[in-house]
């Protein structure tokens, strides 16, 4: 392993941290392009929010505008309908770019009153055409450029697929657990960015994937692809939709606007396309409420050392890798609406310089929830979440979409700190886990299957930094495809600590232990493998 790379990444992180701090320090001067002013939003969300349904916005010229975001007004006035200038004018200062009288009153009135949001109406035809484009592009590239063979479809393969029905495919872990969900995210957004809500967009994801499986590939339709593409695509799709909404600032012009549109389109290409054809990418108009959701972003880097011990081999295997990661927390439990899907979600992951470049990626976003009790910082609620897991490293692989029921409680400890605890039950819909006795034609070396899981986690935190976190996740995967008549018990426990050096920079350490017990049918012997891992990192809050 090359330690030089690890040190390089570490130095990069320090550089990133310092840069982040400098940018933050310069924030008020406004002399750099600050993506969507994320930290400002967070401050606004955390500190200036007066009541559950009320925002106080402070313009850069110092004037304060209050606006009641009652649910009805939000429905009428945000991204779902035409906004009336009289209702909006209290906040018209937000249409200014920091310079007085940037837009005239007449222009503002005209802009606000005449703008009708693209997503205020359902565009079924556009959604269908865009889905066809999303299906066509990867198929055409495979058919005429990369020519792998599976794109040679026609009446014969279509009828054959209709007759034969489902199978499980042999694709490698990255393709099945990451590439397919990304494609599903595009299907989902053909509806989501054309005026359909979260629930209404779900069938588009399932349908797009189903059409691809039956008619886009020569091979039989793959059941694991359908589940992974659709379910994880919905998960990823809603996240990219919301993050893209954070990035595109409708109130700016010039290079700020161009860059915000480019970043927004990179995160969500379908939305970027729709903004172009609807003219919203170039027109100055009010932002929706989705632009103002508070977020926290952390970037971390460091190194880890993984050991693999197995009952089926005599000596340990050791790997040391450099890691670069991120952690995005969208929304705020204090006032996010429990009934709006993904009004709160968390997504985090790492890339490494080891054999698996994308080494882990996780997310969960709530579908709905119920506040159970408590007030202030001491509260309890139950939420139903859509979860995504992706872990691949030299020692093991695990992934799959699932539904996570989460009981969360927070308890105040001292003046500023509190303990946040989560107790969750997973329903993994299509788990993928390492196996010793299955090797597919296209690089697959893992089993597929559903199963239950459990999550226990507790953190001592001040709301920004988690000083100490203890976590355990356990899963049982019943193999549906791969090693016959097998099942896997998976355990992953970790303890991590972060020591903040200032408001934006911290150092930390983590120790985790992954343990897989796999039970196989005769004559294959059962296998038990353990993988302790240590990680040192720097983390910066952007």
């Amino acid at each position, binding site marked *: 392993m090359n330690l030089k790379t690890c040190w390089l990444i570490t130095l990069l992180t320090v550089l990133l941290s310092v840069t982040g701090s400098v940018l933050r320090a310069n924030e008020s001067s406004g002399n750099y392009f600050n993506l969507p002013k994320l930290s400002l939003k967070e401050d606004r969300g955390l500190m200036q929010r007066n009541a559950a349904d009320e925002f106080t916005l402070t313009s850069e010229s110092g004037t304060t505008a209050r606006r009641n*975001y*009652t*649910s*009805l*007004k*939000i*429905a009428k006035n*945000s*991204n*779902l309908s035409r906004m009336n200038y009289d209702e909006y004018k209290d906040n018209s200062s937000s249409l200014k770019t920091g310079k007085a009288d940037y837009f005239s009153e007449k222009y503002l009135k005209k802009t606000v009153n005449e703008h009708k949001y693209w997503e205020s109406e359902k565009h079924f035809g556009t959604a269908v055409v865009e889905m066809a484009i999303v299906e066509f592009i990867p198929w055409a590239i495979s058919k005429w450029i990369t020519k792998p063979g599976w794109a040679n479809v026609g009446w014969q393969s279509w009828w054959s697929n*209709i*007759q*034969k*029905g*489902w*199978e*499980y495919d042999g694709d490698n872990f990255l393709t099945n657990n990451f590439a397919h969900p990304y494609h599903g995210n595009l299907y989902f957004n053909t509806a989501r960015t054309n005026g359909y*809500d*979260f*629930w*209404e967009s779900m*069938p588009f994801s399932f349908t797009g994937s*189903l059409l691809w499986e039956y008619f886009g590939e020569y091979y039989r*339709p793959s059941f694991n692809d359908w*589940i992974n593409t659709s*379910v994880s695509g919905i998960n990823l799709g809603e996240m990219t939709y919301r993050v893209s909404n954070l990035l595109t600032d409708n109130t700016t012009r010039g290079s700020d606007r161009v860059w915000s549109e480019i970043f927004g389109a990179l995160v969500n290409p379908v939305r970027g396309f729709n903004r172009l054809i609807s003219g919203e990418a170039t027109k100055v108009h009010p932002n*929706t*409420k*989705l632009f103002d959701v508070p977020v926290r972003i952390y970037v971390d880097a460091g190194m880890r050392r993984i050991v693999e011990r197995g009952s089926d081999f005599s000596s340990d295997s050791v790997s040391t890798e450099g890691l670069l990661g991120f952690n995005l927390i969208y929304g705020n439990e204090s006032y996010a*609406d429990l*009934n*709006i*899907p993904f009004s709160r979600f968390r997504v985090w992951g790492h890339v490494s310089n080891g054999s698996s470049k994308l080494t882990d990626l996780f997310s969960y976003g709530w*579908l*709905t929830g119920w506040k159970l009790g408590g007030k202030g910082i001491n509260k309890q609620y139950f939420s*139903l979440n*859509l979860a995504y897991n992706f872990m691949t490293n030299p020692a093991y692989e695990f992934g799959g979409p699932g*539904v996570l029921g989460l009981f969360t409680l927070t308890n105040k400890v001292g003046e500023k700190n509190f303990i946040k605890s989560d107790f969750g039950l997973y*329903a*993994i*819909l299509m788990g993928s886990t390492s196996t010793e006795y299955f090797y597919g034609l296209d690089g697959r070396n893992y089993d597929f*299957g*559903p*199963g*239950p899981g459990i999550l226990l986690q507790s953190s001592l935190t001040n709301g920004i930094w988690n000083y100490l976190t203890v976590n355990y996740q356990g899963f049982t995967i*019943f193999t*549906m*495809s791969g090693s016959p008549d097998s099942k896997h018990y998976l355990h992953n426990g970790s303890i991590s600590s972060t020591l903040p050096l200032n408001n934006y920079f911290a150092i930390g350490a983590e120790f985790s232990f992954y343990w897989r017990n796999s039970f196989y049918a005769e004559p294959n012997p059962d296998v038990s493998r353990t993988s302790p891992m240590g990680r040192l990192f720097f983390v910066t809050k952007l």
Partner: protein
Amino acid sequence: MKTLLYTLLIIFAFASGRSFADGPGVGKVSMKEDSQNAKKGWSSMFLEADYSYTRHLGEYEEVWGSSQAATLSFGKKFEKNWMLYFKTGYAKTSEWKDEREGNSMIPVLLGGKYYFDLGTVMPYFAFTNGFNVISQKYDNFGGKTDDMLVKYAWELGAGTYVNFTKNFALNATVSYNSSFYYIDAQMTGFVYSGGLSYFFR
């Protein structure tokens, strides 16, 4: 057991929140409508009895031929265009010869319909998802095999209601199903069904 678990998980994922809409604040608006619907109680429920003929495909068709089924559905109409329903029944393949050889199944399905209320005619798209409890008997080279299987099943189709009284409607559906059976011989087929529906209103 694995299939049962699988099916329940998927049904759970689907059914977890159709009653909640999305978008800023819209969830609350829709919830009001939902609560209004809830007050109506039975008035949004419906009951349906259907007969269906399935033209199976592929290897399953070669072994077991076609099948016929009688099913009963019970569901709820939501605001706008959605219905959620539970469906079960009994199906038997045409190659049922005698007590020694045959294949029958009990489908247990949960599904949704997206309908267009055009007055007398209500066309819809339907998706159902669940599991088949399959019972099969056959001679396996002299040895008798008597299996009970639980396999994931789904069906996608289109159909229409024709309302001929305030409460009664005729129902006709054509759908494609691709249910699990054995990985090399899945239970695929086209289903043609018709029946009578009663809407509590």
